[in-house]
């Protein structure tokens, strides 16, 4: 096993890439661990919703309150819902949700698999006729990949609610009008790449958390380290992916999709 002292970033990356290939391959061929996958989806999706909901609500509220003065200066206050909706749908919803999930789910997976690794539970599974790559890793990666977009849909919707309330602090606006205004500037090229990227975020969080846990060293401190570096690496990965997806967004914008 590798010596974590001064862990080499490059070997970490090649290790991660190889691990990703293994994960994808084990996701491809049957048998599929559907039960375990449902269980993980429940914890990763449903159980994370309250946290996401609170954050998204506050985010929508605060973002609106903070953006309002600028638009008021330009006499363009009516653009507020549209401006907020575009930033939420395009960027803030997916990225903030992904970062929170990197913190909660990524570290959770890293710690869980790390401690399973350290206490030989993964070995025990393997000798019990269970491919831990399938049973533990694929299910988690699949669950994060599929649940993150759904969490983001909720986050976007709840952020809209927060934004609506913030707009309402300065005068009545009917929910219907707010929605019309919010959706007016939205195109498919706002929604679709943003959604595609949430899948990638979810995948990255799952893979990185699993990788960090799965390759944890020895001892309890390795568990902490696995959890910690899972969060750090996943967060950085989210920003890098986000940057790359901007290109996709632009090319779709060109086609006016």
């Amino acid at each position, binding site marked *: 096993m590798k010596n974590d002292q001064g862990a080499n970033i490059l070997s970490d990356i090649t290790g991660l890439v190889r691990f990703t290939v293994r994960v994808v391959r084990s996701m491809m061929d049957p048998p599929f661990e559907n039960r375990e996958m*449902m269980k993980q989806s429940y914890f990763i999706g449903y159980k994370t919703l309250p946290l996401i909901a609170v954050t998204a609500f506050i985010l929508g509220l605060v973002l609106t309150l903070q953006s309002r003065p600028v638009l008021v200066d*330009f006499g363009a206050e009516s653009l507020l819902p549209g401006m907020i909706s575009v930033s939420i749908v395009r960027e803030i919803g997916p990225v903030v949700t992904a970062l929170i999930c990197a913190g909660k789910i990524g570290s959770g997976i890293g710690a869980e698999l790390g401690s399973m690794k350290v206490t030989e539970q993964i070995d025990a599974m393997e000798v019990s006729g269970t491919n831990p790559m399938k049973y533990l890793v694929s299910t988690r990666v699949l669950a994060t990949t599929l649940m993150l*977009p*759904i969490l983001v849909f909720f986050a976007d*919707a709840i952020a809209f609610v927060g934004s609506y309330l913030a707009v309402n602090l300065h005068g009545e606006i009917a929910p219907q009008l707010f929605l019309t205004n919010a*959706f007016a500037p939205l195109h498919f090229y706002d*929604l679709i790449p943003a959604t595609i990227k949430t899948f990638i975020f979810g995948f990255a969080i799952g893979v990185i958390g699993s990788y960090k846990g799965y390759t944890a060293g020895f001892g309890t401190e390795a568990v902490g380290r696995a959890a910690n570096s899972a969060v750090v690496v996943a967060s950085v990965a989210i920003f890098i992916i986000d940057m790359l997806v901007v290109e996709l967004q632009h090319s779709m914008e060109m086609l006016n999709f």
Partner: protein
Amino acid sequence: MTITMKMTVGKGIRLGVFIILGIAIFAYAIYIIGKQRNLFGNTFTVSGIFRDVSGLKVGSNVRYSGINVGSVSNVHLLNDTLVKVQVTLEDKVHQFIREDSRMEIGTEGVMGNKVVNITPGTSTKPVVEEGATLGTIEAVKMDEILDELKKSSVNTTVVTQNLAEITSKINQGEGIFGKLFTDTSFTNNLDQISRNTANLTRNVSTITSKINHEEGVVGKLLSDTTLAKEFDQAGNNLLESTRNLKGFTQKINRGEGMFGKMFTDTAFTRNLDETARNLTYTTKQARAISENLARITRHIESGKGVMNKLLVDSTFADSLDGTLKNINKTARELDQAAETVRKNWFIRTFSTKKQPPEQQQIDTTKNRPK
């Protein structure tokens, strides 16, 4: 943590509800966005042919009486000069689009997004058929406005030059009278001034109408109120010049029937001297106008302070209107002056051989297509 993390039926149901709700939110968003872009429901298409679509894109909104009724579904070149724009419209507006409805490209919003406006037709005309080609009203662009401003600037320069010529002739002193009244070019010059000023007026009027027409563009390109002030200044200067010329004309008019006096009376000579000075002043004024206009053109070309100008948009339009009126008045007065000079029997007598004008003449009549 619960006693066991086993997946129970209850958890399964909660997970299912969670997933279904999440997907419903997404589906709702897709539906709303799709509806805005007319992806669902019955639609029909019409098209229009433009020479220039000013950056109109597929997906741009289509308005009928200011209501969103569809979107642009295709923009493509027909040949080297014509662009075909196809729009998809909601079925419910079909009944209002008549054969003489027209398509026009307009601008909306802070960002100057392009939209297609469809004008209502005559209610007696039949409703258009699916796939019909509507007539179009060509959009006016800032480029053209810039061109106009340049032309105005040139015209003003010409006016200035003409005035300068007259002035120098008067200033040359000796043999003033013989020269002044026998030389047909004097009359021609005054004629020319009048015509050029009329051109200038027309130019500025075109600009103003275009600017009024294209509010968004003005907001985008014009930087601040100083510009408006400069335009005003230009107007005032022209007015001033007119007054000076008028004075000159009046003096000539007063000289009518005073044939003998004209050659003997020193007061008249003094008068003419004054006129010469006045004309010099006018020349300077006209040059200032020319410079002002050139400055405005540069200003607009550099397009400074886009957003700020947005807020003073209407003020600017008012200023332009004022300027236009001033210039109009000036032109009329110059016309009158020229007319007076021409009518004057004295001058007529001495200017029998009229020569065709050689001065630069700028044609401004072809700005509006069709």
